[in-house]
């Protein structure tokens, strides 16, 4: 088995709407793969198909060597899943939730106690074992949900926006846990809207309108996914200048990053023209992931419009 996940042309059609369009992926064991894309891009739908709880309209593939369509029940003991919607039992305690999933994944009785304790430590929930989940706040709940998803030592975990609605510190802690998991050989599929999290993935899959637009390491994406020449401008009242700059024929993109403007030019020779226009010097930069994201999403929109 070379790939943990290998799927071809996975498609999901709801009525007349194609939510996922011919998605093909090859993901190696131990890899952290980030799914990035605007709302409604089809990330959740794709993950549900990979987990075997949503039947693809067409396409085929293998998860851990099992056939995605015919052997979905054989896959289930080996995967963990954290759905986008919070999905623990609110009226059970931390320990009861973990114990429930330990049972569902048939953990041997002898190691169950230890494994639950491990998960509690991992989720930093020590001394709150007997608290009802309803009383926990966002970050804790999320780490507990992760605990429930990985208590059966899955080979692959699917995390659907695990860090939405969680404080920045909690997010950082959470991703550190994910990286530890990957180091131990677990394959991680994670959807996110945060660029700093995307940076920490081994590879990023850009999905927009159901299609996989690019899939590569963060560095490669920044180098190659954006066509053109990127410069940074430091202007007063930068926000008011965007329209004027975007009107220039040689400008492909102009967007605000904090106080700075990122301008994507057709090529390097346009730098002079831009500097004359704004009366300030422009500094060439490598695009950030966000630039990549914006450029790819825009490219996709133009294709759709045509």
């Amino acid at each position, binding site marked *: 088995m070379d790939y943990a996940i290998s799927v071809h042309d996975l498609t999901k059609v709801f009525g007349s709407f194609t939510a996922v369009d011919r998605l093909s992926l090859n993901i190696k064991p131990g890899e952290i793969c980030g799914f990035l894309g605007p709302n409604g891009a089809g990330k959740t739908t794709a993950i549900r198909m990979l987990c075997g709880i949503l039947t693809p309209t067409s396409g085929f593939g293998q998860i851990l060597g099992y056939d995605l369509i015919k052997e979905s029940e054989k896959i289930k003991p080996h995967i963990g899943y954290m759905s986008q919607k919070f999905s623990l039992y609110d009226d059970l305690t931390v320990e009861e939730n973990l114990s429930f999933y330990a*049972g569902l994944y048939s953990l041997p009785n002898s190691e169950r106690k230890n494994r639950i304790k491990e998960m509690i430590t991992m989720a930093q929930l020590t001394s709150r074992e007997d608290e009802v989940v309803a009383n926990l706040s966002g970050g804790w709940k999320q780490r507990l949900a992760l605990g429930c998803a990985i208590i059966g030592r899955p080979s692959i975990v699917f995390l659907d926006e695990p860090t939405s609605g969680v404080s920045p510190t909690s997010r950082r802690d959470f991703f550190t846990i994910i990286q530890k998991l990957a180091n131990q050989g677990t394959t991680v599929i994670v959807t996110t809207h945060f660029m700093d999290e995307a940076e920490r993935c081994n590879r990023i899959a850009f999905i927009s309108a159901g299609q996989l637009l690019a899939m590569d390491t963060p560095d490669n994406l920044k180098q190659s996914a954006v066509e053109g020449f990127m410069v940074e401008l430091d202007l007063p009242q930068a926000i008011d200048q965007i329209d004027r700059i975007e009107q220039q024929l040689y400008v492909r993109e102009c967007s605000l990053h904090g106080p700075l403007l990122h301008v994507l030019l057709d090529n390097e020779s346009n730098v002079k023209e831009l500097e004359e226009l704004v009366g300030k010097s422009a500094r060439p930069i490598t695009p950030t992931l966000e630039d990549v994201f914006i450029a790819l999403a825009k490219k996709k929109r133009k294709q759709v419009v045509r």
Partner: protein
Amino acid sequence: MSRILSVLKKEFIQMRRDRLTFALVFMMPLIQLLLFGYAIQTEVKHIPTIVFDQSLTNESRELLASFSASGYFDVIKTAKNYAEVNQAIAVANSIGLLKSQEILAQKVQFQGPPYDIRVRPWYNPDGITAYFMVPAILGIIVTMTMVIITAVAIVRERERGTLEQLLVTPIKPYELMIGKILPYIALGYIQITVALVVAVTVFDVPIKGSLLELYLLTLFFITASLGLGIFISNIAKTQMQAFQMSFFVMLPSILLSGFMFPRDAMPQFIYYLSAFIPLTYYLDIIRGIILKGIGFQYLVGQVTALLVFSIVLLIVSTLKFKKKIV
């Protein structure tokens, strides 16, 4: 096995912490039985009575006097012909009708018995009493609770999003069904015990047959009700829908099972329809054991019917439950 146990344990914990379940199991039998039981049991006195005296003799006047003296009848009107009688009944301010014939007067002079009185309660011909109703109410309470509680069992998880999580685990549909149903069987028994205690202590309902037999045969009724509930849970999309479907099922149960009206008096179509209601069979069982003291050998047909219900509903529900989201 470990998976069934896990679900069992979880359901028990959730059941214990859910106040609504608690209220359904303990309060429903108490309140319903007391309400219905008393409404039916209360001895009817001071019945507004219309007299249609066709003989108008001394004897008939004496007879009427003794009737009013008993306290059961209040003569509010004297009718002169049948038309007046019918009208009085139609507007429903009178329930009793007393008719004495002129021959009575002659009879008295020869030999006793002096009067030939036939009591004919037109609107309760079988003389239904609390004894008769209380066991039936018990059946209704159990089936209602079981159907409603299980009807929301799976839908609730779907609405809360916990079902999606369950679908990704290796659990098998039958394991989930068993794990979800077993705790409710226990609940059904607790409830029936509460109800029986009320029936015996408050209404003095004598249990003529074997209590053990009643408990054993009740199992099939509980499983049939749970099967119905689980089936609803599988097809309902929301908890609201599950509730509505439960009521849709309960209403015919109450009306057609023979709880309200004797089945023999029903039109043929309705009679056959009522054969598809578990309560129909349980009424025979519970009334039979409690009131007539009959045993299993007379109830084989009913038990078989309930068993078939349970098996079919549970199997269909299990097969219908797909580990996919829709």
